């Protein structure tokens, strides 16, 4: 599981690549620290290369969203495959994010 984070013109971009399972979640939760630190800035997460997500992964997304909400930022999720989109829908997460 890889997480690439880029800061550009005051906007944050993140790319989640691979499987975001429980085993990966621990690592990812550390990797997203820059995002939490810049929670006030608009954030775009690219999920087009994320093939799997478990509840631990969802928890990371929720952490990011809560931080953004607290700092007045916003989070846009792009490129979710239908299966992951289904999980987001099932768990009510679609309502928490802006999804493109």
């Amino acid at each position, binding site marked *: 599981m890889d997480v690439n984070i880029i800061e550009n013109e005051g906007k944050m971009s993140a790319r989640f690549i691979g499987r975001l*399972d429980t*085993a990966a979640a621990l690592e990812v939760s550390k990797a997203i620290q820059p995002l939490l630190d810049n929670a006030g800035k608009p954030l775009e997460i690219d999920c087009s290369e994320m093939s799997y997500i478990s509840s*631990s992964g969802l*928890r990371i997304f929720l952490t990011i969203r809560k931080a953004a909400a607290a700092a007045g930022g916003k989070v846009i999720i792009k490129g979710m495959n239908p299966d992951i989109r289904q999980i987001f829908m099932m768990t*009510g997460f679609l309502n928490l994010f802006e999804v493109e």
Partner: protein
Amino acid sequence: MNNKKQEQSDAKRAAAWQGLALVLVAALTLEATSLIQYYFSRKGIEEETLALAQSELESTGLRITGVMDQVETVLQNNVWTVRECLTRPDSLKATAIRVVEDNPVIIGSTVAMVPGYLRRYPLYAPYAVREADTLRVTSLATADYDYPSQPWFTKPIESDEGYWSEPYWDEGGGNVLMTTFSLPIRDKKGRLAAVLTADVSLDWMSEIIGDIDVYPHAYGVMLSREGQIMASPAETLVMQTSMREIATRFDDSVSVSDLARSMQDGQTGSTSIHNKKKVSHVFYAPVKRAGWSMCIVVPHEEIYGNIERIGKIVLLLQVLGILMIILIITATVLSQMHMREIADRKNRIENELQVARGIQMAMIPKIFPPYPERGDIDMFASLTPAKEVGGDLYDFYIRDDKLFFCIGDVSGKGVPASLVMAVTRSLFRTVSGHENSPQRIVSTMNSSMSESNETSMFVTLFVGVLDLLNGHLRYCNAGHNAPLLLSGDTAVPLEVASNIALGILPDQSFCEQETDLKYGEGLFLYTDGLTEAENESHQLFGESRMMREAARNTGLPVREQVERMQARISEHVGSAPQSDDLTMLVIKYMNTKEPDAAERHLILHNDIQQIPQLASFIEQIADESGIDQSLAMSLNLALEEAVTNVICYAYPEGSDGLVDIEAIIRHDRLDFIVSDSGTPFDPTEVAQADVSLDVNERPIGGLGVFLIRNIMNEVRYERKDGKNILYMTKKL
């Protein structure tokens, strides 16, 4: 029905008439016998009395004529003496004296000369009379007496023979009843010269008459020629009254006058007279020489009293006897009628019981096999109602691939029990129609039945819900006998909480239990009519016998299992009557897809880093079962959540443990079983995430179980043998 009643009442009437006829014949026979007996006895007594009276009359008459003979003889003997000394007056006087002196029976005697016979004495009649112990001699030839005109002087001369006078009171001679015998005497030339007399006291006659003792109260009466009473127990009547006068004092005066006439006429005979409601029989005969007549009066009571008393007693006994016969016959007829009524009532009750049996049998499924189109379940049941009808029931049906079944026993017997049974069965159908949990089915039924339970009847009930897709059995017992779990060649009681029967406490809580039936396993459900089937010596069939028999039959088709058990019970019971309903229900679970099921195993350590292994495990299963990528991902997710839970919660941090993941692949579904030996942890109990909350309210956790439930069709947790077991099913 009406004809039957008519026949019955005809039969009753016939029986009553027969009885009556019997009584009549018996009564007539008895009556005739005793009448004949009475008639002959009475006739005998009558004849005897007549003979007795006649002999008494005869002997009394003989005694009287004896005395008269004596007197007559004395006078006859003196005729010669008188004739010899007709011219010597002194000698005539001496003769009179001698007659009195020599004969104690003679009180007085005279030789009365025919007037003018003696030239010296125109009238001459010296009279010797006994007074006390001395003899006095007087003359009857006085101016005021005028003996030649007295009857004792004239009558013998008229008739020229001896003459007995009418009795009379001799006032001069000491108030004695007297009679005089007079004998005319002619001289040697044949001229009438004198009349020789002897006065006789009639005292002896009273004695003779008083001696009559043929019956205690019998008495005699002597009548003179003129009908005067000469002797009688009533002494005041003697020589004072004639029989004809007395007759007027009688109620039955005609009979008495007739009697008096007959007696005066010198007849012999007998008659009856009535006076003051009493009847007397009179026997009479003449005393020939004197022209008197004598009768003996005997009270009717004395002759016929005994026989009439006996007759009355016999009659009374007969009447009593007949009354008793009537009583006995009446009682017999009544008791027969009563017996018939009891029989009628019994028939009616039996009819009602048949109705009850009808109600019972109409409520239960009776077509076997019930689901011939399904290969995964086979059942057979039998309900044998007792003569008195208990309240056994069983029921089953399939909804959503689940078999809902129950078996129960209503307390009590008869129509009420079968009605409660019908209510129970309806409730089961209604409640289970929208409820999958046996515990809730039982609870709802219990509340409903407890509320309206006015008859205090209760029901023991076992409710089971068998998931036909995976053999998972959930059940709830309410006081019923534990069913037997049939597995391999064993039959052991299913582990059940006994709980309390339905209809007792409205708020009673019932616990639900569960188990899994594997291919070929089944249940044997029964009511206590089986274990408590009694033989003639009151030995119960018992549980051990039942378990042995059930174990022996596990391999057989369900119908045969029930039939063999039934045969074994019949063998035990013999000819003893069945006292309670007997119900058996056998369920055999056979998942037909079982043979092509494939099992896959994965064992992980309690390490998060091993979780990625699940992905390849799922991939393999996806290959075998042909599921698509996205379903595989969902299953991966659910499984990961389950395993994560185990790793995070079941094992304390740092301890080493294993997670066992088993997958069963069938063509129509996938079963996953995740088990571990960690501390008890039921993930299904964890509060589920509320997915409708917004960002700020949304908690971080709680999503795992939510995801499992959403992905899988069924999720179930079990703690068994120290293991946490989570069952998950995904239908394909």
